[in-house]
């Protein structure tokens, strides 16, 4: 225990700093992913053909191992002198978030009780009114579930981004591995886990706040 105390005394401020970097990278990526994914998911509910295509592409993206994706991005982003660092990591995280966000938005809205949709149309709601008043509110728990999946997943993937110099908690782990330093590996891993748990809890709170009790049950 003494060793741990000494380790934390020296490294705690650095761990905190890296945690904040990590959180910023993931938050920015999720923010942009939401701006793309949710409108796209909503739009896809009106276009079945495009929906199948886009969901396929998003699924394929998710099957690419993150380390490979980072590798592919280095030559591409080198063209604009951003081969390593924040930009490729950010882009990769945005891509990975797309599948859970688009798919859950799409399925959430598609799976709204068809009778409810029928009633909405039959009472004379326009498409936009139907989406805003009926479909999105009732699909909210499913949409939020997708966002939470994306966030937790991205916190994990962002660890790998340390290999291409994007910073974050991955730095502790990669350094720990190369120096054979268990303190670095364990503290890095625990910090990632805590960050993921906290982020998920906050999102769950937001979800509950904005979902009517009736739908959550």
């Amino acid at each position: 225990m003494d060793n741990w105390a000494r380790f934390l005394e020296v490294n705690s401020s650095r761990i905190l700093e890296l945690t904040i970097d990590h959180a910023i990278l993931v938050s920015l990526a999720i923010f942009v992913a939401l701006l793309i994914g949710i409108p796209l998911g909503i739009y896809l509910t009106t276009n079945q053909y495009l929906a199948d295509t886009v969901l396929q592409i998003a699924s394929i993206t998710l099957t690419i191992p993150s380390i490979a994706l980072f590798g592919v991005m280095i030559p591409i982003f080198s063209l604009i002198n951003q081969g390593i660092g924040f930009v490729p990591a950010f882009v990769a995280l945005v891509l990975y978030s797309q599948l859970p966000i688009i798919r859950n938005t799409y399925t959430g809205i598609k799976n709204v009780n068809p009778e409810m949709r029928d009633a909405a149309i039959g009472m004379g709601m326009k498409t936009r009114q139907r989406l805003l008043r009926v479909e999105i509110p009732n699909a909210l728990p499913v949409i939020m579930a997708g966002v939470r999946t994306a966030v937790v997943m991205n916190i994990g993937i962002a660890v790998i981004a340390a290999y291409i110099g994007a910073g974050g908690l991955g730095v502790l782990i990669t350094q720990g591995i190369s120096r054979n330093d268990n303190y670095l590996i364990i503290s890095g891993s625990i910090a990632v886990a805590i960050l993921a748990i906290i982020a998920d809890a906050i999102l769950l709170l937001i979800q509950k706040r904005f979902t009517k009790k009736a739908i959550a049950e």
Partner: protein
Amino acid sequence: MISFNHVTKSYGEEITAIDDVDFTVEEGKIVVLLGPSGCGKTTLLRMVNQLESITKGEIVINGENSKDLDPIELRRKIGYVIQSNGLFPNMTIEENVMIVPDLLGWNKKKKRERFEYLMNLIGLDPKDYGKRYPHELSGGQQQRIGVVRALAADPPVMLMDEPFGALDPIIRDKIQEEFLQIQREVKKTILFVSHDIDEAIKMADKIVLLRDGKIMQFDTPSEMLAHPNNEFVSQFFGKDRAIKSLSLHTVQNLREVIGLGPVDEAIQDTKTIHVHQDLRNTLSMLLNQEADQVIVKDEQDENIGTITIDMVQKYLHFEIKGKMSASQEG
């Protein structure tokens, strides 16, 4: 008034879902579309508010061809009730009921007054229920809310697609009565889909009996029971159609034709029945209890006579079977 003028709907060359349907729902009347599953009754109903397209023919609603109307405007002018009530779980009861007025841009005060009026119509306290959510209400209450939601903007025409189909028999019976009561007050022009013969007989001013998208018969319930047009109609209503037709007659009708029996004061524990009850209920009451008579009460709750199984049978013979056999001979 809703007129179907030779309405046909076909999918491609082969399949004809609705075949040259032609009938009219008069102002303030209830017409029930009745028939087995897949006969096209729901399709026909959904053609009125353009949820289904029409291949040939036209539907004229209060003098306007539905084709010439904007579907959004049209739907807001037609009350629409579906089987599963279609209430939105994310909205309170008040928000649910006031959807169409809201879409039409009514002001707050007008909406509030309308909501209170409608809730009083179905005997639910607007203050208490307004803020609740649909899942906090019983199935019967939800369905009542579904009905008043369709009435919210006071549309002249209503479409009801098996509105009471998901309710248990006792509640269904009660809500049917309640709805007929409301209809006497609001006098809407109603197209009503049902697969339940008893419901159709009870609710309808006229019944459209459909098979495979064709009209088999369009008539009042009593005419249809007494004079079925063809084999299908008589089979559809079944061998017991004479008994079914009893629900169209009340104890009062029987009293006028053959009179009631005397009240025997010695008998105390007999059940009683109201003079406006239908004869079908009366008959099942007689069959269910041990005594062979029930006491009839009038509006003032006075005993005015008794009724027995024999009397119902006699009435059935004179009034209903008499008409039936006359038609078969003719």
